[in-house]
């Protein structure tokens, strides 16, 4: 536990020292989502702005108004709204992959990482990260498929029981187990990503192997730390939604926007915290140690007879005076 605390506190310390990354990622998230939701906004403006029909959305939130809006042909199909949002979501994913190496470099630095170094790390590691993402995608995809397949079988078995609560219990426990296992996979690839960046490892497979080895070795500490961070994320999400519902008046669009964005901003922290934990672990356990080398003692040099040529003193070198400038 003390080990966890060590990882957690050092990871959180890295996040705290590099708060700007959270802000920039939030801004990126917001900007891309703005693009992703622009079609939705445009359609809604066209129908609602000159109608009294939207009032029930302002004073409270009448789901029937929203449902009626979505079925209007002029609003367009829902796919036209959701697809751009998903595309921009995917862009955010790519952007995260692009900028994450800089974040790792920043977390590992004991000083404020200059912008040039940040982007250099991003550029150097982009292709490595893409390769890592592909491998992680395959491994985690297979694992997810297998786990959810098994979960489905268990659910079907539980559904046959006459105890109605068995199904939700199996579902909940199953999802929790899947979460733990997938978090284990995430730890593996987080360590691999950290190693790729901080070891400047061109051979991604070596980092994947190192990540796997260490995720087994430090599984308890790492999993504990990751679960704590996830719990914090859940608390932030639930707390944010609670504030939104209880504190923000239904008519306050600005209030809703601020609470929503604050929640999303804070929601980024736990994931960056997990990455801080990975960097901290890497520094403690994976970094190749610098072996202290004994300085080579200079051997006494035997004086030897050296032929010395006697040269007369040269004339003193006098620098040229600066050219005089003409004028006033």
């Amino acid at each position, binding site marked *: 536990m003390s080990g966890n605390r060590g990882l957690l506190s050092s990871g959180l310390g890295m996040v705290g020292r590099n708060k700007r990354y959270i802000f920039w990622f939030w801004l990126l*998230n*917001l900007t*891309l*989502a703005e693009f*992703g*939701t622009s079609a*939705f*906004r445009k359609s*809604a403006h066209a*129908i*609602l*702005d*000159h*109608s*009294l*029909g*939207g*009032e*029930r*959305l*302002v004073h*409270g*939130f*009448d*789901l*029937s108004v929203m*449902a*009626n*809006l979505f*079925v*209007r042909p002029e609003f367009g199909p829902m796919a036209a709204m959701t697809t751009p*949002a998903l595309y*921009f*979501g*995917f862009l*955010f*994913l790519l952007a*995260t992959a692009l900028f*994450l190496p800089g974040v790792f470099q920043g977390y590992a630095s004991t000083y404020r990482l200059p912008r040039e170094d940040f982007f250099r790390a991003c550029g150097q590691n982009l292709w490595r*990260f893409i390769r890592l*993402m592909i491998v*992680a995608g395959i491994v985690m995809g297979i694992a997810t498929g297998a786990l959810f397949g098994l979960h489905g079988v268990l659910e079907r078995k539980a559904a046959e029981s*006459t*105890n*109605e609560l068995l199904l*939700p219990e199996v579902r909940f426990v199953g999802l929790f187990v899947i979460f733990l296992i*997938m978090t284990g996979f*995430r730890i593996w690839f987080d360590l691999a*990503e950290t190693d790729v960046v901080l070891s400047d490892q061109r051979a991604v497979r070596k980092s994947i192997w190192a990540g796997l080895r260490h995720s087994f070795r430090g599984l308890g500490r790492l999993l504990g730390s990751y679960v704590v961070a996830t719990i914090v994320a859940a608390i932030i*999400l639930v707390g944010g939604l609670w504030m939104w*519902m209880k504190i923000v008046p*239904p008519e306050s*669009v600005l209030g*809703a*926007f601020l609470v*929503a964005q604050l*929640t*999303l901003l804070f*929601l980024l922290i736990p*994931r960056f915290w997990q990455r801080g934990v990975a960097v901290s672990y890497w520094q403690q356990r994976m970094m190749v140690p610098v072996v202290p080398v004994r300085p080579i003692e200079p051997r006494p040099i035997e004086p030897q007879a050296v032929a010395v040529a006697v040269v007369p003193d040269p004339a003193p070198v006098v620098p040229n005076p600066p050219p005089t400038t003409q004028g006033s």
Partner: protein
Amino acid sequence: MQIRWKMVLLIAALALGLTAIMNRKTATAAPQAAAPAVKTAPSAKNAKDAAPGGVSIPDTTLAINSDKPMSERVVHYEIDAKYDAGKHTVDATEVLTYHNLTGQALDHFPFHLYQNAFQPKATFVRDAKLMGSRDTGYAKWEDKYYGSEEIKSLEVIGQGDLTSQLQYIAPDDGNQDDKTVVDLHVAKPIAPGAYVQFKIAFQTKFPETQARSGWKRDFVLGGQWFPKVGVWWHGAWNCHQYHNTTEFFADFGVYDVKLTVPAYEVVGASGLQVDEKSNPDNTKTVTYHGDDIHDFAWTASPRYKVRESVYQSQMGPIKLRFLMQPAHWSQAERHEKIIRETLDRFEKWYGPYPYKTLTVVDPEPDSAAGGMEYPTFITGDSSWFMPDGFHLVELVVEHEFGHQYWYGMVATNEFEDAWMDEGINSYTEVKVLDSILGKNTSIMNMAGATLGEREAQRGSYISVADRDPMAQKAYDYYNSNSYGGITYGKTASVLLTLEGIIGEDTMAKAMHAYFMKYRFTHPTKEDFLKTIEEVCGKDLRWYFNQAVYGSPVMDYEVLNAESFPVNWYEEKKEQKNDKKGAKDDTVYQSFVALHRKEDFVMPVEVEIKFDNGEKVREHWDGQSRWIRYSYQKKAKVVSAELDPDHTVQIDRNDFNNSFVVEANPKPTYKLSTYWLFVTQWVSQALAWWAV
């Protein structure tokens, strides 16, 4: 010798008479809570007009709070059934006494064999594949879907065994593989006014729950499980095949049913339980009696937890019985509360509930048994997780109870006029739930979001508004969505709109009059529509022809609203005056244009607001495609709103029913904030796991 026989006959007659009097007293004075074991076997004892052969329909009143029968009793079913919980089968004998009140001799009798619908080539399954289904979609056939109802033997008393005369017919679609209707030609026609008795041995095999009948795990809901004779209606037999979108139609009568089930089962059924006895083979036999009902359903599960109470209705006490799933026990109170409040509204608004019992079943989770109505017996729908702000329990239980009136007592033809039971019931559901749970919160009121039943009904209609008319056979709808949207949603919306036309009080009177006049009968759509016209004293054909018999769609819009100064060419001068702060005496020319976009023609009101606070109301008959109103005032138009009292529920698009001159982006901003949040959160979650 003759004298001796006469003495014997006299003694026998006296004995019968005494027994009849005693039975009658027992029936009428039966205590509510613990009904005695009463033999209500078929006999001439209780009948007023017993046939010479001693066959008749009993006039018992054991199960109703009335001292005389409330319906014209056509049938008497006596069923002795044994349920095999392992095989999900029922082996039974049925004695059906039918009173020929058709006014003509009958030489054939069609019977429904509903459980045969659950066979791969049956019309029900074919319809489900073609039209979609509320329950099973039959993407792949599985053995557990199979159901059957087989007549082992059929004897017509006095005519012998006529099993060989049975012939499957398919009056609706000619499907040779459909066995849901069987026709029997009798050897001798049954004279008008005469009684005939059928003695039927049958076996029913239930499928895993489909269409609110069948088994799930160790639960069973026995609905539509016995051979049931068709209805002689408007000069012909009315006995449709079982379709995916149809329900049922049957005559009123008396039911005496003995159910033998494993001893561990908790049983509930239509009617009043009159006896329960244990058998040596680890089974028990529970006996039920029903008066003035037209169907009989039952359920059994070893795990029901039972809650009972008594409701004092206008006609007497009603025993309320709730069969709850163990995991839903905490919701039993919700079930009872909504039943009590609904009963209160129905009795006040429409008429009394005459039965002595009401059984509310909380069916097996994840079964297709939820949300069904049978006489004095309904199924609700719930789950282990049911927040108080989500009113699914109330919605379903109220709806199914409403069917005790619109189906149970006002027994319309559900095959041909589905809107008259489902739709009228949906209308009263809106009224009752509005009154109990609030107009805009009757379905949901949680986490800041609300949803009302009124708008939900409208929503289901507008998605299929131009597909089908209301007045259409249930199996002729384009698909199950259209059936649902029109029969439930459109009917409710049409009747709510009608309230706006004739007034809420008049509509309430009309509904009360309709119920009281047609309870325990089989009214037609015209009976209903004419009752409304009679009560309100108006010719409403213009409305009924479009809304009930036709499928035109209503969509009115405020096409435009604008103002400009009458002396617009002096605009600069005016602006100059404004800057000086002088009083604005500018006279504006304002226009408001209304447009009827679709074919439904209906008079409407429009309210125009001006920036000096003035409001003007106009009445437009809607006959032309558009109309423009113009005004000259020292004020500019702010907004125009069609149907300002919000009485029209059938307008397909209510966003264009108003026009605000100054754009108000706030609703869009709010909605966008939500959508933005969801998009960002999904993006973050995606990035969380993928990189």
